[in-house]
């Protein structure tokens, strides 16, 4: 367990060192939110109706940038300091990486919420529930995202490859998170929220297990 915390600490430290990069991803996400509003038009009603979906689209588009960056920092720092040479089991390495990426994506999502509130009027009466939803959704993106980013980090044309692999896979996360945030923003008269949260929890459970098992296979060769 101590090894796990040491590995997690290392990952978070690496992310802290590349915080300038994270900041520019936040700007990218905010730009995406602004551009999407131009695709809808200035009508406040429709903007509010689709705010949940656009928040998650912006987060999804930004996620490939942070996931790539997290692996890139890894590769660069590894050359410089040999931090990766810690004798850590691949499973521990994966969970520390995935947890650090979840934290980063949840932070990104949390920062984009005020932008969405200002631009789309997407205020919610249950901000804590929205935060929990963002953490869950970030977890759903981070587990397969970390695995795929590790694979594509050294492949050709990785900027295109990571979204091609990740986007079809996380369709359930996008659907469930979009529906759940829309319910939080627009109100939930039919009590459908828990069904969507269950779907997200199930997705996270399946992929945090499966990707943890598979990570060993892809780094051991």
């Amino acid at each position, binding site marked *: 367990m101590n090894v796990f915390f040491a590995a997690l600490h290392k990952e978070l430290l690496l992310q802290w060192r590349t915080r300038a990069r994270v900041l520019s991803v936040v700007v990218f996400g905010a730009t995406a939110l602004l551009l999407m509003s131009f695709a809808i038009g200035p009508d406040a009603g429709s903007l509010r109706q689709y705010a949940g979906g656009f928040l998650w689209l912006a987060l999804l588009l930004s996620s490939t940038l942070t996931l790539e960056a997290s692996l890139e920092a890894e590769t660069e720092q590894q050359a410089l300091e040999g931090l990766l040479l810690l004798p850590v089991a691949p499973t521990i390495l994966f969970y520390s990486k995935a947890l650090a990426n979840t934290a980063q994506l949840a932070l990104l999502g949390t920062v984009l919420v005020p932008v969405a509130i200002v631009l789309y009027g997407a205020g919610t009466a249950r901000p804590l529930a929205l935060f929990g939803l963002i953490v869950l959704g970030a977890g759903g993106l981070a587990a397969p995202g970390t695995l795929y980013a590790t694979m594509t980090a050294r*492949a050709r044309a990785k900027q295109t490859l990571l979204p091609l692999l990740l986007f*079809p*896979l996380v369709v359930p996360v996008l*659907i469930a998170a979009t529906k759940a945030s829309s319910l939080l923003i627009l109100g939930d008269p039919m009590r459908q929220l828990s069904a969507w949260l269950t779907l997200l929890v199930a997705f996270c459970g399946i992929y945090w297990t*499966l990707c943890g098992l598979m990570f060993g296979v*892809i780094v051991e060769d």
Partner: protein
Amino acid sequence: MGFLLVAVGVVLLLSGSWYGLFVSPQERYMGDVQRIMYVHVPTAWNALLLFTFAMGCALMSLWRGGWGWDAHHEALLEGAAVLSALLCVQGAIWARPTWGVWWDWDPRLTTTAVMFLALLGILALRSAVDDPEKRATWSAVATIIAFVDVPIVYFSVRWWNSLHQMQSSPETVSAPFIVPLRLNAFGVLALMGGLALLRARVAARRTARELGPALEPLPAGALVEAR
């Protein structure tokens, strides 16, 4: 073996299509448009079946190793991609006269589209990795992960889009409709299976070339156990 299966598949498909187009009676509510089902349903069955076979090859490739599994994995992925592309096109052709739109967000059709994109992603991964060892392992992992996703996508799209029509299964369909379905189902299976076997042989030969002189002089049959 591959050529034989292709021939069997063509014969089955020709007879099934002849039966479906000329022998089966017109469906009561949908008219002749319904006859596209004789291709559509067998394509759907076989797309899923090929993806399942690909998943099996991926598992065997990880568990046992062996370039043969990898070659068949590649061939079956391509087969499944072709069939799901066909499925999307057929779905659009079916939706246009039936509902007046090209796409109806039916959970099965939408899941097929997602599956098609996921398969293209795995094939892109295979084409972007040059090292055969890594290509085999990584694409096998990607196939397993994508395969597990298919039912989750299906249910999430189904909840997302409450409007949804009944599954057609042999129980709800009368005999003159079953015959062409069965003939075409086995026809597509034999055709795609045969093509996959032929394609796998090409893939195995390419891998052997990539692995270099160490494996050069082996006969074609021995490649399968060469890893």
